[in-house]
């Protein structure tokens, strides 16, 4: 297949189509509306289900219904819309249904803005809907990765009967890059043995998230956490750059990781032994890998487009073995390589305190609103 100049939102939508998605229910919200718009043209063209719902609340509940039939189904939204979907996502998780959600994160909280952000890490990775459940979260840093992870998300969702979120930020959604779409997969013709479709020639099936007896809910909750550990054992994904001889490690995901890579390359050109660790699965989180990196390095710098959300998962993983520093841009601001290069220089120069909150140190040297 050929590489073409593709826009992120379009690419994720068409990748879903190629992965055999059978139904799309969504609602317009910047910066992901192009997903809805492409699907409004493409899905009916292929005889598949498309509906612009009256709200994200309605959309996620349509997804919930369609998922009960075992069909491949998805929605897409952005931060405020995803907040509206949290109830539905909790119900979907409680009913143990495969669902794919594309979340193109924007500045917040509240109405915020339409600029790129990573401010929803905690909401998505640590499960924003109520209850004990564990979504799979994939973070692309390029259009190609967005395509590949979107295709993967349907397989993971089905394999584990879990919600899989492709969490991009506004830049990934809006930018255009050369990338390759996969060939068209046929739509599935079989259905799982838990799906509802009309009880023809068989016992009826009921799909619900109610377990009125706490002892039964406990069994369900336990099953979900067991499944989470299975996912953790099998599905962790990340990319490593220049880590073989790295004395310092920068950690960033998505666009922050991508910008950090430019800074790391510049630092390498200056002779600094620095590398980049870029998590691709945010849930399951590559804790073990980050912990073993800590054993061989002097310090780590976490770069995020938020106030330090993945930062806490990194700190938990390394258990204070090495100093951790933090650099964040907030509210829709995207860091530039030179900012991160300055941070790498600072980290290398030292001295770095072994503990304390890295955010406070960052705040002492950072001016918000700096363009």
């Amino acid at each position, binding site marked *: 297949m050929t590489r073409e100049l593709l826009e992120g939102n379009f690419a994720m939508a068409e990748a879903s189509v190629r992965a055999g998605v*059978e*139904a799309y*229910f969504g609602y317009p919200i910047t910066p992901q509306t192009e997903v809805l718009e492409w699907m409004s043209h493409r899905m009916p063209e292929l005889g598949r*289900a498309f*509906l612009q*719902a*009256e*709200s994200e*609340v*309605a*959309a996620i*509940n*349509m*997804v*919930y*219904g*369609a*998922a*009960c*039939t075992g*069909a491949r*189904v998805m929605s897409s939204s952005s931060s405020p819309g995803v907040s509206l979907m949290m*109830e*539905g996502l909790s*119900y979907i998780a409680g*009913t143990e249904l495969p669902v794919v959600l594309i979340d193109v994160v924007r500045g917040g909280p509240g109405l915020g803005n339409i600029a790129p952000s990573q401010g929803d890490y905690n909401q998505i990775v640590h499960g924003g809907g109520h209850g004990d459940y564990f979504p799979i979260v994939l973070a692309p840093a390029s259009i190609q990765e967005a395509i590949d992870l979107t295709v993967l998300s349907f397989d993971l969702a089905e394999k584990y009967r879990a919600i899989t979120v492709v969490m991009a930020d506004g830049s990934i959604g809006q930018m255009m890059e050369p990338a390759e779409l996969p060939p068209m997969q046929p739509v599935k013709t079989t259905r799982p043995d838990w799906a*509802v*479709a*009309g*009880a*023809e*020639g068989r016992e*009826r*099936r*009921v*799909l*619900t*998230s*109610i377990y009125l007896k706490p002892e039964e809910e406990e069994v369900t909750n336990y099953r979900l956490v067991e499944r989470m550990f299975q996912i953790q054992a099998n599905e962790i994904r990340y990319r490593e750059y220049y880590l073989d001889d790295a004395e310092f490690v920068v950690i960033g995901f998505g666009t922050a990781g991508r910008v950090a890579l430019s800074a790391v390359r510049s630092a390498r050109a200056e002779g600094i032994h620095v590398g980049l660790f870029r998590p691709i699965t945010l849930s399951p989180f590559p804790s073990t890998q980050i912990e073993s990196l800590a054993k061989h390095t002097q310090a780590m710098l976490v770069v995020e487009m938020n106030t330090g959300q993945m930062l806490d998962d990194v700190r938990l993983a390394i258990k204070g073995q090495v100093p951790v520093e933090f650099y964040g841009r907030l509210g829709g601001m995207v860091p530039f390589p030179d900012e991160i290069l300055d941070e790498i220089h600072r980290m290398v120069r030292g001295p770095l305190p072994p503990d304390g909150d890295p955010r406070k140190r960052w705040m002492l040297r950072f001016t918000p609103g700096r363009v």
Partner: protein
Amino acid sequence: MDTIAPAQPAQTVYVRPSSLTDTPMHYCPGCTHGVAHRLIAEVMDEMEIREKTIGVAPVGCSVFAYNYFNCDFVEAAHGRAPAMATGIKRVLPDRIVFAYQGDGDLASIGMGEIMHAAGRGENITVIFINNAIYGMTGGQMAPTTLPGQKTTSSPNGRDVEQMGFPLHMSEVLAKMEGSGYIVRRSLHDPKNIRLAKKAIRMAFETQMRGLGFSMVELLSTCPTNWGMTPVEALGWLEEHMIPVYPLEDFKVSSALTGLKF
């Protein structure tokens, strides 16, 4: 035992529909949910659609409706049943999909979902149980609570100045071009129960024929939260609810003309 008259074989005159399971219902004595469930099940049997029907249960006293119907069922979040039914019908358009909802589920938290399902002319059937109160949570005011009616959250009676007037969902939804069959019936006496069954049949026929959104609003009792005996409750419904919620046909698709059950 010897008898003078010849023995005759026993004749079955009344039987549980096969679309109902053999499960004791948890509803209060005198609750009309049991009647509504049975009417739907009888219609499913008569139309022979049990094996291709998927039901959507609401949040409310009938949250466990799926324990009583012998067909595939899913459980919706509060108010979202029409959206869930839409998702199912859009991927399985040849199945019969119905949602069963109470007045809080449909007319309060679910107002957006029901309006748009009707607006889109979604080929689903909604059975709307209107008992003018929130049953499951212990008797609070509903959008359909009558002016002056006392509930646990309108202890001095519904004050229309503060809390507005009851909502007439059948009248409103009938105005949508996407609606194919919207009627209101009642479950307070045998005659009206028979008429209710006919309406439920017509609603499912509307769906079978792809004639748009169908709904049967069923005036129902809640003796427990109304603070009455079951018989008093039936009388209260007739005396107080019917004047506010007239039993009429609000929308009947012309393609249904001549259809009688």
